[in-house]
């Protein structure tokens, strides 16, 4: 089953999941203030559904906080693994999970289930939804659960474009002279 938090516009994404094979969908009707309040809104529904595994994305495309999944795990008291790029699980009490680290390193861990995993883009090629499935998904009911927005965990004081720093040197001229100047700079800096 698939769950999201948002206004009715968010149902398009749920319908897509239904067309791709999800059995049920729930929309938590709330306008979350931040990742923590999103996680709070999700936690009640997840607790009630008692899933064996909870999958979230790594981060949202807009605010790129990367915190909702891990906050949800904390609220539910479940183990969690972030930035998962491979999952081996046959429905038993443990799952083997490949976690993506910086520099191409992969951390292979075993995790007890139920657990919360935040899933990295590209872990699988999702099946496509054909037009028939899309049409059938349109007929399905999406459950709507109200939720209180709760307290914001932080407040945004200011948003600004970072000031242009000094010290950049633009190199003009042909490739050879630019390359020559770069060599000089590298030699200077390396001492």
């Amino acid at each position, binding site marked *: 089953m698939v769950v999201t938090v948002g206004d009715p516009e968010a149902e398009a994404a749920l319908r897509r999941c239904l067309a791709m094979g999800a059995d049920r969908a729930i929309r938590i009707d709330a306008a979350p203030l931040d990742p923590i309040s999103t996680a709070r809104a999700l936690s009640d529904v997840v607790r009630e559904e008692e899933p064996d595994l909870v999958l979230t994305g790594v981060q949202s495309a807009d605010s790129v906080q990367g915190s909702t999944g891990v906050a949800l795990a904390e609220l539910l008291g479940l183990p969690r693994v972030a930035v998962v790029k491979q999952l081996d699980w046959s429905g038993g009490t443990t799952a083997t999970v490949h976690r993506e680290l910086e520099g191409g390193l992969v951390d292979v861990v075993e995790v007890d289930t139920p657990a919360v995993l935040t899933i990295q883009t590209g872990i699988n090629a999702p099946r496509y939804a*054909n*037009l*028939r499935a*899309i*049409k059938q998904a349109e007929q399905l009911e999406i459950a709507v659960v109200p939720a209180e927005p709760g307290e914001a965990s932080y407040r945004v004081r200011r948003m600004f474009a970072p000031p242009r720093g000094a010290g950049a040197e633009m190199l003009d001229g042909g490739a050879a002279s630019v390359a020559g100047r770069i060599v000089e700079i590298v030699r200077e800096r390396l001492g």
Partner: protein
Amino acid sequence: MARNPKHDVLFEPIQIGPKTMKNRFYQIPHCNGFGSERPLSQAYFRAMKAEGGYAACCTEYCSISPESDDTHRVSARIWDDGDIRNLSIMCAMLHEHGALAACELWYGGPHAPCMESRCVPRGPTQIPSDFEYLTYAKEMDKDDIHEVQQLYVDAAKRAREAGFDIVYVYGSHSYLPQQFLTPYYNHRTDEYGGSLENRARFWRETIEQVKNAVGSDCAIAVRISTDMFMGEAGTQLERDALPFVELVDDLVDVWDVNVSGISEWGEDATPSRFYAQGRQLPWQAAVKSVSKKPVLGVGRWTNPDAMVDAINSGQLDIIATCRPSISDPFLPQKIDEGRLDDIRECIGCNICISRWEIGGPPLICTQNATAGEEYRRGWHPERFERAANADNDVLVVGAGPAGMECAMILGKRGMRRVHLVEAQDDMGGIMRWIPQLPGLGEWARVVNYRKIQIDKLKNVEFIPDTTLDAQGVKDYGAEIVIVATGGYWATDGLNGATHDTIPGADASLAHILTPEQIMVEGKAVPGERVVIVDNDGYFMGVSLAEKLALEGKQVTMLTPMGHIAPYMHFTLEAPNMHRKLHKLGVEIVTYHMPTKIEAGGVTAAHVYDGDGHERTWEADATVLVTQRRSSEALFRELKDVDGRDALAAEGVAALYRIGDCEAPRLTADAIFSGHRLAREIDSPNPAVPLPYKRERRVPDSDALEDDLRELRVRREREAVPV
């Protein structure tokens, strides 16, 4: 979106003589197959560019007299009042859009075969055309010179009457005025030949007379080829062109500068295979450096940054486009609105030009299926009506050129959902690998443009890596199914010459290969010696020859035709292609058709004298470029095995096929086929094209009656009593 300020200079007005262009975009004279005798097709075609933001649009070459009749090719003509009336429609429509109208007055001299008028053209010297067979001019005496100059003056007055704002005295492409300037054509010893001053005399006097006649009302444009690349005999930049520019600069309001003569005018209308954007700038800049007047010139401009550079660096004043304006008549508007990724860039394939070279058919464009269809089919390149059956879902199987185009246009026509399903991991079909052939990189623009557009359309979804069988199609849930599964090169030598396979041809063998096997599957070409069998006659055989020769193979091209790649004469690619293959040591064998292919070689016979004239070319590998076949298995199963009722039971109300899946043809035709179906998806029978408007004379019934009555009277009068 708004224009990027760095492109502002392109939208500054510019004065040319008594007229003002509202911006720097100019549609250079170019042919379209309409001339003066399909006046509405002509007017709607040019007006589309004015609507798209061009500040001025020109006719194609416009004959000033029946003495300059280019039939079999189609030129405009301004011979009489009828031509004035017909061309005035174009002028009026351009003016409605705030654009200027230009007329390229043309006299072909020995290049004009006069097959319709049966007149005798006049020329500087009696040497037959280097462009046209069996075409001679009458050598001009002084009376002829004055008479032809008067033809220019009279034609210029007619052009003014038709409403033209700019009138050319056209010399480029080796036409009469430039013939006088050029020793290759001008062997005269009188005051019209010899010294530069003498060779320039005819053109100078003609410009002067035209200016005196219409110069206060019309801008005078001169189109000059600054270098014919013919050594001493041809026009040369320093020796001829620049002194000529200085000589007549005061008489001219705008210079239109290019290079080449007519017999290799692919040096001007450059295929992307050989030349990049802006290739003529050095010559255009040279004229700009000696002229006080605005200079315009072509360069297959599609990139606004390059256009701005050309102007800001003082090399050009006005950006002239031919092919990019065919590919996208809205190029200026899209730059103006900052919609650069909506520009449908010309790929430089020259399929447009091929139609003029063939002599008669309307132009076509690979990128723009609506080119030439503005009047007769009423198609607008940027406007789409919501389909009457837009509440349907459509499945397009195959994301090659036809499938992409069809899905894109269906999306723009507001179909509820369009799914474009492709077996490969990305869009493009054959246009994913054809651009990997030597020199064809820009052809990938066919894919790039459509990919970007499809990505923007919310109702069109691309589904890669998915092969649908008939069951998959039936289960898919679409009301309309369009099969666009493309085609493939024959693996058995089936061909249009013998209408049979070639004995021994079997591409499952290691030493026999097809184009896809080489380009897509990576099948190794064994050994050193390769024979390419080319019955196709266009780019595939020669492109593979170039590729394999560049890889170090010893290549022989064998064709039953009289030329290798004869269609490339029409696209102007032939001269440089021949040059290239010759330099690479590719052996060319014409008029020979293989009779058998073996592991060690190919045996072929002369097509007209096969008996006892067989010869064997030793070869380690043979490449079959004999013909293509449609990949129609899916369509056949859906239509023949399942049939209409079975499909209807699954909710599939309509089944069509497009592109190479229907018949493997030019990419331009495949794209047209996809576009056409999408434009007519709500017609009574979308499988069959709606009739288009034909501009032809249909005598009214009174006239027919009169002619019949006259015939009857004459028969009675002449009847011999029995």
